[in-house]
């Protein structure tokens, strides 16, 4: 199962999908840095991540 996370930043809503949780954490923080000049904790990404069928 792939992992998916949705950004809660105001007026964003970006959906990030990755093959596993480690890749998701890396991709989410890349998004947070580039889009919002910020970061997200790995524990919070893990809690918010949902399983989705791989594309």
């Amino acid at each position: 199962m792939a992992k998916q996370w949705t950004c809660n930043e105001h007026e964003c809503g970006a959906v990030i999908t990755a093959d596993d949780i480690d890749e998701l954490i890396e991709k989410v923080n890349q998004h947070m840095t580039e889009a919002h000049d910020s970061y997200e904790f790995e524990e919070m990404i893990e809690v918010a991540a949902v399983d989705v069928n791989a594309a």
Partner: protein
Amino acid sequence: MSTIEDLPERTLESRLRFTRDMMAGPVYRKYERALRKMWDPGEWDYTQDRADFEKLTPEQQKGLLMITVRFLAGEQEVTDELLPMIYAAHMLGRYDWVMYLSTFMLEEARHSQFFAIWHDKVIDCVEPEELRPYWVDHEKTTDPSGHFTTGEPVYEGLPFYGQKLVEACHAGDLKEIEKGFVRFATLYNVWVEGVLTMPSYEMVIDTCDIWNALPTLRHGFKQIIADEGRHITFGTTACRELIDANPEYGDLVHEMIELYRGNAVGMLGYQRSVPELNLDKYQTQKVRHYKNRCRELGIDADQTLIDQILDPNIDFVIGVEAG
């Protein structure tokens, strides 16, 4: 009066607390991760920070100390006020929570140690009389529009609701302990740590980057926020479990946030003392953190609160939240 001989015989299950399910659970994994991520501020070098601080203007020095002194006090407070949560975990029979909270308390103590060492080595101040010039009281902050007041969730809310939780534990009513835990964890982990303090961490790190200075202060904040990520998600994970079993507990979360709604709606004073900072970033960021906490708890966010945080017409300054 009962005597020790009147106590029921202990079961084996009450003495051998480990289970494979517990060891595979999210809270036990936080305990393991905390053990792997130990750090010691006593081993760090503060000489560059001292040299950098001396080069700052008096306004920059004062602006920075407004926030670091509040962190120094706040970290001591959250260390000292954590005990009711451990007591509740014990009473609810959650040994995984007790194990994790043992690392939580150590980490909060370590954060206070870091700030004490930093102030002592960088500005030669650590005791109350030495730091008094940099302390700003915020207990009586009021929104000029009259719509919001702000309180002290760390210095008033945590001791008050911690005492309520202790009383519930003494009485031994498990439902009341659960409710007291949700109230206390909402205030501590969800609101103070998980929403109000988050912009303060980022402001200090951004300030260090903008000034290209104070590397040990920046490093310390980075280490602290990594610990906070575990603390916050412990609170939301534990509350989520209780709310899933008792959906009415979700209302307690909103009630506790309502008590200190104004603290999120107002803007932090520090945001205006460093002109280079992007003020909008930290205000909109509160909305993300609030929505993240609600998502972790499995409850709906209050849209009116979000609208108020983002409303540019609501404009008042409050103190630094540090915990």
